[in-house]
């Protein structure tokens, strides 16, 4: 039994430095997730501000409409289809690289979900907070920035964290555009060694550990944010 496992391990990870498929893949997964999260937050923040501004003041009508279309399309289609369209259709004339394509596709996808999270966070803040800010003489943008956003952000930290965990796992479809991410790395090993157990379990454990570490981090952040309010 131990003999067999050891041999399996050797075959799957040591021979031909196959472990590199895992570590290189992991690098790509982390790279894509990290930059997609950045784009997602930026885009989501922008869209949320536009949508909330329209709800509150009926300004930015055209931008709001564009945001509505964006949200509908992104939330209404599978991310893997969006990724393939990005690579094989939109970037078909000029290949900017698979990782770049994935960052853009996942970023745009994540932005749509983050936007709704931010927006619900903003609308969960009592109207009195907004009025207090305005009555002191803050303009709309200042009131949003100094008074509404910090409270909204605090409220949505758990949901936001969850969204990023989802994103990390969703990047596992990156193989569809031939990108060697963590999942694809395991898959390649499997096809070389004709054994599925070791590489796939290894991949699963690595995802699991990352998700658990991230959750811990978020819990610590939440505790810190809570302490400042009582």
């Amino acid at each position, binding site marked *: 039994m131990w003999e067999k496992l050891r041999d399996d391990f050797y075959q799957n990870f040591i021979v031909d430095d196959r472990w590199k498929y895992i570590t290189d893949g992991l690098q790509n997964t982390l790279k894509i997730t990290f930059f997609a999260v950045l784009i997602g937050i930026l885009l989501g923040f922008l869209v949320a501000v536009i949508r909330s501004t329209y709800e509150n003041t009926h300004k930015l009508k055209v931008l709001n409409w564009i945001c509505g279309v964006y949200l509908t399309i992104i939330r209404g289609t599978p991310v893997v289809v969006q990724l393939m369209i990005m690579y094989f259709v939109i970037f078909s004339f000029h290949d900017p690289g698979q990782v770049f394509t994935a960052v853009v596709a996942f970023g745009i996808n994540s932005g749509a979900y983050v936007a709704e999270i931010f927006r619900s966070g903003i609308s969960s803040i009592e109207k*009195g*907070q907004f009025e207090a800010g*305005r*009555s*002191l003489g*803050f303009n709309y943008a200042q009131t949003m920035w*100094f008074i509404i956003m*910090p*409270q909204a952000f605090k409220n949505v930290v758990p949901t936001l964290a969850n969204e990023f965990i989802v994103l990390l796992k969703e990047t596992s479809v990156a193989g569809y555009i031939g990108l060697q991410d963590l999942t694809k790395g395991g898959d390649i090993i499997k096809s070389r060694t004709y054994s599925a157990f070791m590489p796939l379990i290894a991949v699963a454990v690595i995802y699991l550990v990352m998700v658990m570490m991230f959750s811990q981090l978020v819990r610590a952040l939440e505790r810190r944010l809570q302490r400042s309010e009582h």
Partner: protein
Amino acid sequence: MSIDNMDKPLIQVQNLGKKFGDMEVLKDISVDIYKGDVVCVIGPSGSGKSTFLRCLNRLEEPSGGHILFEGADIVDKKTDIDKHRQKMGMVFQQFNLFPHMTILKNLTIAPVKLQGKSEKEAKEQALKLLHKVGLADRADSYPNQLSGGQKQRIAIVRSLCMNPDVMLFDEPTSALDPEMVGEVLTVMRELADEKMTMVVVTHEMGFAREVATRVMFMDGGYFLEEAEPGEFFANPKNDRLKLFLSKVL
């Protein structure tokens, strides 16, 4: 300041109207508020008192009329309302302190960001005012650590930190437990003694009687009666005011 200026009202409300959809809440309101006036607005619930007050700093968009304040028409969309709001403090029934900031930050953020004061300057002023309302030791607390009465005193100070020319109060004691009403009214009374111009929507008839320079009765979207408090309470003329007073006194 010339004599002419001193005689001119600080706020001139002319034919103010406000509709919510088809519902006409304010019909034809005209009133002059002078420097040092303490105007108490009383009336049945739903009569439009809050709406009137909130039109004064355009938290509600008036449907018609004019509100002249320091050389500008508040109703005019072209008026830089943010600038004028800095000179009009507002105190809400629900306090509306910023829960994510310490008390000190609540008090200094507007002077620092809007009036270009240094943190130090703003802090000194805030501490001085906190001291006056007896809450100097709470500067580093968060709003949720305070009682309702303390919160409302802080909310008043927050407005005062902007050095406003007029203070608007919308039922500042209505959300308070009875034992905390007094401490807030005391602060307001002191403000009145210092000749702050105040417009106060209230159900505290005692306060209106003792502190107001004028009391106004609102019902059905109009000011139906206006008098100095002695006359107002002793000799009400309007029938609906008589009925109202018979219920609340």
